[in-house]
């Protein structure tokens, strides 16, 4: 694989991460003040959504989701312009992974005459998150990136290419995003570095932890408070036996309240033989995830599944959450996680249905052929004499492509999961 960028070269300068965070909080507080003074005033709610998004994405400030719910309630209460209300609802719902709701608001906005570009941009994000109409999304992403050449259009394209297992292209696009950036916000640059870390550390078939760690470190250099980058780098350190370094990385991030920090810290402490301290962190992680799931269950179903499949040590809950996530956004990666969760608890029939659905939906893609599910599918086909594996390699029909999972056992498990969570 080509290495487009050397991590050790001089990087574009950015405002010091501590200053940027002070300023983000400053601007956010001011916009909230303005919002409470006149919620309907043009641009204020829109800016707040962006700022809260930054707070959640980079600072691990997951209360941002609650604040955004407050914002949409207040916005609806003051009866602001219908188009703005619908667009903001759609954006907030999409952030919380309530994609069906987001689509519904987006349709309302469109009906009321919302600017097509705003609708298209949001719809693309939803389609990408759900793995819907992925060829059209890819074409549109390429078009937008080519037209603007800006980082904020290049990074989503890189992420999509990574999802499609086009890793070299994703790497090239991320590198282009770094080159294209013409401002000094560390948020933007840290975001690209994080994406490159995830690409090399988690997404490529043969992960390159040293290379990934360099990118995560670069992201943290830009933005010391970048909680996700700290968590991911700590995982690499832990796997490398560097538990002290991992602990040093995670400790400052505890204050963010993100339960993933407590979870990873518990793992580190356990690996260091400090089981009592680990248990405290694990309790914090468990209660943190449950609190998040209670309020924003679609947004955190994926993370919750990962937690319970790991140190959270509740395979059934992991499967339930993975299936909720899969039903909500039937991407190839969601299928892989759900399949793994089903196998983990011995639900072989559920696993087979997930596999069949994934093959039906994604089997024709190159991404599927690089997925572990392809191997499982081939194995399954061999053992199922007379089964028609070839049918999985044809394109799905339009309804299937929209993501409907119609399998009875999945529905059963899904329904139980819904009951357990809501």
């Amino acid at each position, binding site marked *: 694989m080509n290495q487009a960028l050397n991590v050790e070269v001089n*990087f574009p*300068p950015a405002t010091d991460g501590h200053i940027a965070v002070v300023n983000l909080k400053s601007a956010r507080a*001011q916009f909230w003040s303005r919002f409470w003074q006149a919620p309907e005033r043009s641009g204020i709610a829109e800016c707040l959504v962006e700022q809260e998004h930054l707070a959640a994405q980079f600072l691990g400030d997951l209360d941002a989701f609650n604040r955004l719910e407050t914002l949409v309630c207040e916005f609806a209460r003051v009866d602001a312009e219908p188009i703005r209300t619908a667009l903001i609802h759609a954006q907030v719902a999409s952030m919380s992974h309530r994609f069906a709701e987001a689509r519904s608001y987006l349709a309302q906005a469109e009906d009321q005459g919302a600017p097509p570009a705003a609708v298209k941009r949001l719809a693309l994000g939803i389609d990408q998150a759900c793995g819907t109409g992925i060829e059209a999304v890819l074409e549109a992403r390429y078009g937008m990136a080519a037209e603007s050449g800006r980082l904020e259009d290049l990074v989503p394209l890189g992420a999509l290419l990574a999802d499609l297992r086009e890793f070299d292209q994703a790497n090239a696009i991320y590198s282009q995003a770094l080159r294209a950036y013409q401002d000094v916000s560390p948020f933007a640059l840290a975001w690209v570095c994080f994406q490159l870390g995830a690409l090399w550390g988690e997404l490529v078939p043969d992960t390159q932890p040293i290379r990934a760690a360099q990118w995560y470190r670069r992201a943290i250099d830009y933005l010391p408070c970048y909680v996700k980058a700290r968590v991911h780098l700590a995982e690499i350190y832990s796997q490398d036996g560097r538990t002290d370094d991992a602990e040093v990385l995670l400790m400052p991030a505890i204050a963010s309240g993100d339960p993933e920090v407590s979870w990873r810290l518990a793992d580190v402490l356990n690996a260091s033989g400090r089981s009592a301290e680990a248990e405290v962190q694990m309790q914090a992680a468990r209660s943190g995830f449950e609190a998040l799931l209670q309020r924003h269950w679609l947004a955190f179903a994926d993370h919750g599944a990962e937690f319970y499949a790991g140190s959270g040590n509740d395979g059934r809950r992991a499967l339930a959450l993975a299936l909720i996530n899969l039903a909500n956004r039937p991407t190839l990666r969601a299928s892989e996680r759900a399949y793994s969760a089903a196998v983990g608890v011995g639900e072989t029939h559920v696993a087979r249905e997930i596999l069949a659905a994934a093959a039906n939906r994604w089997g024709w893609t190159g991404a599927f052929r690089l997925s572990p599910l392809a191997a499982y599918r081939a194995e399954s086909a061999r053992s199922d004499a007379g089964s028609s594996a070839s049918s999985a390699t044809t394109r799905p029909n339009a309804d299937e492509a929209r993501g409907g999972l119609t399998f009875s056992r999945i529905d059963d498990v899904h329904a139980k999961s819904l009951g357990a969570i809501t």
Partner: protein
Amino acid sequence: MSDHVDGPRQIGDPAADLTDLFAFASPGNPGRTVLGLDVFPSAGTTAMFSNVVDHSIVVRPVNIEGVGDAARFKPGAKEYRFSCRFSVLEHGPDGALIQRGACTLPGGQELKFVVNDEKGAATADGVFRVFAGLRSDPFILAWLVASLKRFPNLLEHDNVLSIVIELDPRRVFDLGNGSLLGVVAETTPVPGPPTLIGKPPPRFDWVGRPEQTNMRLNNPAMEGTEDLRDLWNQQTPFAIEEELKPLFRQRLIDSLTNWDMRDGKADWTAATLGAAADVYLDDFILIDVSKPTSDTSYLEIEKSTLRGHAYQTGGGRTVNSNVVDIMLSWMVNNDREYLQGGAKSATKPGVNTFPYLASPNTELQTVLESVELSAPPDQVWALIGPFGGTWHPLIAKIRLTGQGIGQLRTIETIDGKQIIERLAAMDNSLRLYRYTNISGIPAVDYTGTLAVKPKGSGSSVEWRVQYWADGQPDIVVKTIVSTLLKTGLEALKKRFG
């Protein structure tokens, strides 16, 4: 706001986004000149300068090379640059965050200072004095620009990061060939070692006259026109690319024509519009440091020259100059009638002493209290819904004046204080009313909302108050308001369970 968030490049880091530029004679000592710039639109109560941005005010001598429709202001080649650079944050002895800065003056002398130190720093000879820090945004934008409707100041309670440089012009500038100067501000990358990834832009933002980008080049009433702001921001101040000048000039003419017709009357001829476009194309604030400036002298040099006579004032732009109203009056009706927007002054007008911009605004405070009650909502609303109801244990007596929305209640508290509040909204179907405080609480823009909602078989009462502390520390006002709310809701809990 004259240049706030004016293009895609500025959306990255607000601390690189220039909002305003000032140039005026010191009100306390007219022999001294004050130059100032603001960055970071809508800053809150804490904000810091970017450590990778150079913040510069650049001054050049200017010659008048034509009058009337041939009016031209030609900048000279000599440049005086005042450039401020800032450090990363440090922790002070008390744990508070500190940022330091240094201003490189024309000639290379460096003047160091601490951000937010109101006294600033001065050179030993007293020629220069510099301040940098958070201040109340002095800009007044009291119009909905696209529709030209009056509106309260859109920047009320906002803060900005300001840099103020006071100097003795006779000892800094070569005034032998004249005392007319052109001033711009720009934010540029701090020079560093070359990066192998990407190339920094020559500058992030620059500003000359207020609203060149947001109101003239990108006239909000001219829908469907291409946004030229980003292209303009990429230009080098004092040196707009020759090949792009026709594009910008035509846009300025189109925009000025649109502005002229906003009141349905043509007050400008084609020739004078073209001449004005040429003047605007040379985008810098003009100040004659040998003449007095005032809050109304902004654009006087340009106007007089275009009208074919000698200017009388120092022009410039003071902190309290209502530049939007001045500019609109000129563009819309050629000064036939002064267009007064919906506000006459900023949140905190500038002051006559260094650093001239007022202290920063405090944060909007919100106090929210709620209680769950066993009684149904209607029963609770029957008690607390009437605006003149005396259910609160800290209230001795209420007197109502007037009726319906707008009526006043004069509250006498049990310790003898008087509070006056005005009913702003009443919705019995939602069981909600909103009121504002007129007096009796040390706060401004004080709004309270009392609402009863169903909750299970009972109800919940939510009482939200928002205000800006005024004359008392936030904590003191917050204690007063919290006590008022909590005591009231506790009384309801006792009463309804």
